[in-house]
């Protein structure tokens, strides 16, 4: 029997970037906020002195424990989905701060083209450019409208960067200077310049100077210690929710955090959310937390699943292509971040040093900055070189043709440990009618609730865009003087590995309730006091890492929630006709 708690203004599900930003903004505005996090409480001390590759990179210390709940996955609508059982195949953040704690820190903005991709593609190339099965659509918000929220995120997070010569307009400079330039990044930039491209340092959430953000929270200077992606920061030097928005929320006195609180349902009747039902996983006690506004701000899978389990919104049906919840599931799988690896016989780099977002890039082949008239795909991506700081277990890269084990492997893996550089193309991934989310008919979680089921397959667009990107990476590596260049092979099929956390959609935003679940404040069309915040709102995936876009949307949503708390009602006007074909 659930114990009913006192009503609060806002209950937030999830404490990552989305939940953290919403919690901070609303509690700063004077509203009483309760935030529920399924994982454990965490602070910087949890990540100090634990630079341990095996524990974090190979045993996924910071990732969701799948014994309680996982996802199921299949390629085709008529297949039986199977559970993704191991953390090696499915990495979603958990614990306070969520994926925002173990992210790498690459802090790009999506391109203006992304937000109006349908209209702009049709405008430039005609309707025929978009294949029938592709369900891309405009976001219901433009880059110019979102810019001030991006700016807010950059300043809160202290993003360290330099302007992309081909990038979209910014209202202010990056709050901190770019990261240091290492010899391998310089080699990349020189080669890119020789080829006529416009390289720059990757904007970074690893902060380059001690920085106090507008909330008064301090982020320390990055030490380039190499234990970054898949780790929490040793020094509080990475922009993450536990050193920024969570303490900012706590300082207001209006915020209560409850960890190890697993939300099972959004409670609702008559088109209004009343609160959430959750379980304290330490005691097993069930609680009902009533609130004026309910905010789902968990990872894509959880946002979708909670709506489906709570029977809110019309579930997407791929056969009729009607319904919205679960529609346009998208993301970057093994069909993105492909490129080539160069091996250098006479050059040795300090590859064991690095930081998550240390790298260089150019955007000449991003979005619609290049003419696609004669190309067999739309959109694009960044060509990137990264210097994460290779661990000793990870750095076993050998030229193709080397056996996977034995004497020759040992010799080459040791020789090339500090003599190889990888380039990749962070290409965009489009949405299709056949890629979606629903509830699995067979597999259940600890509470006997169905798992979320993913149906996802690749298309010609995916193959063609990867092929293009790999060719460009190879061209740059050649100019860099690599002795051996090995191209990545393009996968024919989705491999059901959910590795990078770039999985979005399913509760997408837009200007039409027929084709979107939330408006451009991330407010549900069907339920005015329910906001669904996070990557789940992406109608398709842009050509670059998503975090600042998720942050910007969370600031936008916070503004919307405040408006709703003041005036109530639906904040956007639905367009009558669909923006898609």
């Amino acid at each position, binding site marked *: 029997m659930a114990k009913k708690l006192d009503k609060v203004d806002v209950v937030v599900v999830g404490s990552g970037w989305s939940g953290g930003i919403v919690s901070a903004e609303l509690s700063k505005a004077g509203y009483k906020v309760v935030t529920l996090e399924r994982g454990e409480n965490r602070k910087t001390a949890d990540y100090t002195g634990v630079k341990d590759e095996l524990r974090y990179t190979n045993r996924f210390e910071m990732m969701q424990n799948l014994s309680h709940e996982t996802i199921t996955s299949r390629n085709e609508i008529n297949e*039986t989905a199977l559970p993704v059982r191991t953390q090696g195949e499915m990495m979603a953040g958990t614990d306070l701060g969520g994926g925002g704690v173990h992210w790498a820190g690459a802090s790009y903005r999506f391109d203006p083209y992304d937000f109006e991709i349908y209209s702009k593609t049709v405008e430039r190339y005609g309707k025929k450019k978009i294949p029938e099965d592709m369900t891309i659509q405009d976001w219901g918000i433009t880059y110019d409208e979102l810019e001030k929220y991006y700016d807010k995120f950059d300043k809160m997070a202290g993003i360290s960067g330099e302007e992309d010569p081909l990038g979209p307009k910014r209202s202010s400079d990056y709050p901190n200077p770019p990261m240091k330039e290492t010899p391998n990044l310089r080699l990349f930039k020189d080669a890119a310049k020789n080829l006529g491209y416009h390289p720059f340092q990757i904007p970074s959430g690893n902060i380059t100077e001690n920085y106090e953000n507008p909330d008064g929270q301090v982020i320390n200077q990055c030490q380039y210690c190499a234990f970054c992606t898949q780790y929490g920061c040793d020094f509080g030097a990475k922009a993450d929710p536990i050193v920024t928005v969570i303490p900012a929320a706590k300082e207001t006195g209006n915020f209560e955090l409850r960890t190890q609180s697993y939300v099972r349902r959004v409670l609702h009747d008559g088109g209004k959310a009343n609160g959430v039902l959750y379980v304290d996983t330490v005691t097993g006690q069930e609680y009902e937390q009533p609130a004026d506004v309910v905010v789902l701000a968990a990872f894509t899978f959880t946002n979708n699943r909670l709506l489906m389990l709570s029977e809110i919104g019309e579930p997407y049906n791929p056969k009729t292509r009607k319904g919205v919840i679960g529609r346009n599931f998208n993301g970057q799988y093994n069909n993105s971040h492909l490129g080539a690896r160069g091996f250098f016989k006479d050059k040795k780099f300090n590859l064991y040093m690095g930081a998550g977002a240390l790298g260089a890039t150019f955007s000449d082949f991003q979005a619609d900055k290049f003419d696609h008239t004669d190309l067999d795909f739309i959109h694009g991506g960044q060509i990137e070189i990264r210097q994460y700081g290779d661990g000793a277990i990870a750095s076993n890269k050998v030229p193709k043709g080397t056996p996977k084990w034995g004497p020759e492997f040992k010799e080459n893996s040791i020789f090339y440990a500090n003599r190889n550089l990888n380039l990749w193309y962070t290409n965009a991934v489009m949405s299709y009618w056949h890629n979606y989310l629903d509830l699995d008919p067979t597999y259940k979680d600890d509470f006997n609730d169905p798992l979320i089921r993913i149906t996802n397959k690749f298309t010609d667009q995916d193959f063609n865009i990867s092929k293009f990107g790999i060719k460009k990476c190879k061209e740059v590596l050649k100019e860099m003087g690599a002795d051996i260049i090995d191209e990545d092979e393009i996968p024919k099929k989705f491999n059901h590995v959910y590795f990078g956390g770039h999985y979005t959609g399913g509760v997408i935003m837009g200007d039409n309730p027929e084709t979107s679940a939330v408006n451009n404040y991330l407010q549900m069309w069907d339920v005015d006091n329910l906001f669904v915040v996070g990557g789940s709102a992406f109608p398709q995936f842009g050509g670059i890492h998503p975090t600042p876009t998720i942050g910007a949307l969370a600031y936008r949503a916070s503004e919307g929630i405040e408006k709703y708390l003041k005036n109530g009602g639906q904040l956007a006007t639905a367009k009558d006709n669909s923006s898609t074909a």
Partner: protein
Amino acid sequence: MSDKYDKDNEKDVNTNDKDGVSRRRFIKNTGLVAGGVVGGSLLGGVVTNQWNTTPDKDTQTKGNKTTPELQDARMFFSRKEDFEVLKAATERIFPEDDNGPGAVELGAPYFIDKQLAGQWGSNAKAYMRDPFKQGKQVQDYEHQDRDQDKQGPHSDTQNPTPTPRYQTRLNRGEMFIQGLRKLDKESQDRFKKKFIDAEGDQQDEILEAFEKGEVQMKGVEATTFFNLLLQTTLEGVYADPVYGGNKNMQGWVMKEYPGPRAAYINDIESDDFIKMEPKSLRDYQG
């Protein structure tokens, strides 16, 4: 931060290198290595115990080359014979050579034993609920390549469409026990001798058959077991010594990997490669 870092750099050269070389010479001269593999249990035990030093600077045993490491004992594998097969197999995967020690000397078999005894070995964080659909799926789950289509033949179990990979009710510990016994049986069947007594190229032939999935195991693909063995061997060679492998950080010495450090902020722009004496978590946590 930079103070601590500078101090780290001042430490003089690594003495382990010298030990490593002399040990290798010893092994070669005394013929302990048959076909590149440390043979019978007695000699294997001698090699893994006698010359390992402890990296722990606080203990009194520093420099005492004959002190055995007390943690080098089996806690997962009950049968010594299984562990002997494991030793021989890991040494074929990562053999001793002129670069430095192989898997056995680095303690990789003990590393694996400890890993399997813990939560990872019993799949504590994996989703292990029914139904386990067997027979059609690709189980080559430990392979890190992006493209499953390239991961070797799966004979009658090949599914034209990849699926989530791990679909067996066996946990990792169970896979290892079955796999090691199967390696031994395969050696008996093919060569009429134990795996540990087979020649190096015969051991390779068996390992390759597992890698290609040509050997039938129960409830799991041989390829899956092989990839698990390969992955954990490399982990045992290169993970922090706290886990029982990478003895004396000799895996890191070979790769010129410095171990966990507070900061590279003063060195990261250097045009030259910087070689540092490795430090372990023990050093880093202080």
